[in-house]
């Protein structure tokens, strides 16, 4: 029994190692290609957003796959992280000369505020079950979007100024900024003129960090408690696992990572509106998670990468692009989940599978 457990642990550790190595390998290859100018602009422009979506997918997988609660408002945390990160970066611009340090600070601030919001949302939400929980996360996501849409933030020599345009009568002028002031967030116009700080290296570090946090959490005592809650809440409760504590732990970690990803995302574009982080974005990330496999972090990484590149790679189809995307999505879901199709595919693939048994594993590792 003890030996078996040890073996299981070893296998998990090996699997994690493959994931880390794969991500690192892809990063090294992409960086090399980029520095040699061998990468198309279209692909190199997507490197940072891909990193953001990978972190989003990994963090949502913690909620959906590991904790087992469907969340439809994950984009809300990304939004909180993005805008608080932008505010931090724009305010400290004059005080911190080094861009990487500024970016780091922005990401920490983003993660911090997203974690606070995650805590505020998680406390009530996690008392609910199933689809009711899902709809409440959706509701929180929409509320966050509407609140940020009314937010006015400016910065001048006297400090940070906030105004909240809940009655529709305020605009940037109501911040009363001094001459040297800059408006950072302008309500519906969002953040414009943000300095672009995000880099692929920062994205890579964030991905690795997210993986370290999530994978270690999963393999830890707390992680096992969280998974026990997912598999059988009542049994877990009866052996003395504190439901609220562990649920919150997973939920807040997930929110914080999403916030860091949001900060990176926000600092990759010079303009960002609150409406970007709507229900569709939450769903997009959920698609990555489900397609990659619940609880399977490597799957999330691959799915987020493929599905971010796919619509761009389909540009040749012009008007039919999103139609093709929809068809691919449906077919992949059917191919991976329908028992009959699965059996058919298995039969069709079995000779190839035998042939590529070794190579398939390698390829997987490369991702």
């Amino acid at each position, binding site marked *: 029994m003890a030996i078996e457990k040890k073996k299981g642990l070893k296998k998990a550790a090996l699997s994690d190692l493959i994931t880390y190595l794969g991500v690192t390998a892809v990063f090294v290859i992409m960086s090399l290609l980029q520095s040699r100018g061998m990468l198309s*602009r279209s692909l190199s*422009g997507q490197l940072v957003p891909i990193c953001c979506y990978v972190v989003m997918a990994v963090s949502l997988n913690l909620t959906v796959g590991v904790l087992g609660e469907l969340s439809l408002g994950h984009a809300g945390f990304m939004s909180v992280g993005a805008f608080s990160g932008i505010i931090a970066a724009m305010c400290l611009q004059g005080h911190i000369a080094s861009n990487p340090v500024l970016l780091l600070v922005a990401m920490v601030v983003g993660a911090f505020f997203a974690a606070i919001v995650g805590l505020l949302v998680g406390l009530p939400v996690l008392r609910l079950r199933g689809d009711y929980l899902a709809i409440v996360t959706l509701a929180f996501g929409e509320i966050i979007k509407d609140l940020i849409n009314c937010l006015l933030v400016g910065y001048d020599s006297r400090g940070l100024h906030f105004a909240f345009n809940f009655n529709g009568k305020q605009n940037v002028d109501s911040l009363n900024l001094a001459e040297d002031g800059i408006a950072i967030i302008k309500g519906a116009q969002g953040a414009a003129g943000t300095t672009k700080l995000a880099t692929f290296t920062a994205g890579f570090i964030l991905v690795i960090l997210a993986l370290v946090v999530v994978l270690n959490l999963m393999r830890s005592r707390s992680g096992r408690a969280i998974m026990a809650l997912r598999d059988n809440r009542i049994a877990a409760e009866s052996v003395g696992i504190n439901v609220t504590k562990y649920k919150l732990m997973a939920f807040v970690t997930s929110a914080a990572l999403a916030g860091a990803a949001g900060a990176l995302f926000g600092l990759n574009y010079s303009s960002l509106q609150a409406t970007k982080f709507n229900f569709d974005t939450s769903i997009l990330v959920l698609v990555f998670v489900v397609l990659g496999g619940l609880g399977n972090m490597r799957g999330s990484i691959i799915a987020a990468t493929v599905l971010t590149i796919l619509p761009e790679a389909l540009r040749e189809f012009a008007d039919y692009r999103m139609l093709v995307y929809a068809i691919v999505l449906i077919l992949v879901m059917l191919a991976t989940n329908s028992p009959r199709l699965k059996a058919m595919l298995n039969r069709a693939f079995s000779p190839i599978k035998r042939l590529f048994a070794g190579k398939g594993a390698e390829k997987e590792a490369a991702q």
Partner: protein
Amino acid sequence: MKRIVSVVLAAMLLVCCLSACSSAPASTSNDSSAAPFKIGGIGPLTGDAAIYGQSVMNGAKIAVEEINAKGGVQLQFQEEDDVADGEKGVNAYNTLMDWGMQVLAGPVTTGSAIAVSTEAYNDRVFAITPSASSVDVIDGKDNMFQVCFTDPNQGVGAADYISTNMAGSKVAVIYRNDDAYSQGIRDTFVAEAAAKGLEVVYEGPFTKDTSTDFSVQLNGAQAAGADVIFLPIYYQPASVILNQANVMGYAPTFFGVDGMDGILTMKGFDTSLAEGVMLLTPFSADAADSRTQAFVKTYTERYGETPNQFAADGYDVIYTIAAALEAAGCTPDMSAADICEAMIKVMPTISVDGLTGQGMTWSASGEVSKAPMAVVIRDGVYVTP
């Protein structure tokens, strides 16, 4: 099974990467002979805002064909979809750069335009947007120009017009507060109205999520006794507002901005509802001049619908680019950066006669100078009041 899936996904990823890589070298090879200039267009071709992007691209394609048929400057046009989103806009921009774009006509919507303009500024690619009207689009970027009015321009124009011609009226504003365009015009309108002593009695914002029904806002405006309703919004929600006001039996004067153009040609719209509606627009599909008529005819034949202001903006953008290219003496074998510097120099000196304005000129900051035209709808056509 999971393994197979991840192998398939990984294979797809590989194919995606390869296709992206392989397309790159093809575009970098440029034969210098009689190759045309490569003009890229970015706008929403799918999603909620698809109508604006598609109209601009359709108008632009007509202009490209006309210019090529004339001889002289030859253009090649490529459109890319951005779903009116900054992230997708930058992706579209990068795809166009891979294609070898030399001049950018776009992006169509404000949020995407601000995000792309920073990229274009850093790469030194000349860009002129047909319809992204926020000041942030051109602010601080010497290579960004606009063919449309800026938002403040429209807000101030509307407030001035109402206070001069409809003095003493009570104004209500219904606007979309999660849209940069609408909120931007509302802000300047309200500020200018206060300066001119115009009384704004009611403001009814809505968001995309609450844009199904406008009867609450109309109730509010009616209860506040408004006799002019200012609508700094696009024509689709405006058509709903007109219909609902009609059912309520509420008949104030509606005043719109350039986004209102297109309402008369909406399929199924009862034009009698728009009787007496006033708007500031640079373009009118039933203008009598032969150029507009020829454009409307070609457009209707080809796309089966009457062009709106966006189509005219798209058409004008291409003519402006062609005029600037010619004036700057650019040749297609020049790099995008060289073309950019040359065009920045000539932009403040040229004057273009377009569908959306005669003798359009530009300031060095990128703003266009043309007079907004106030028109009123009578019997389903625009007339100057």
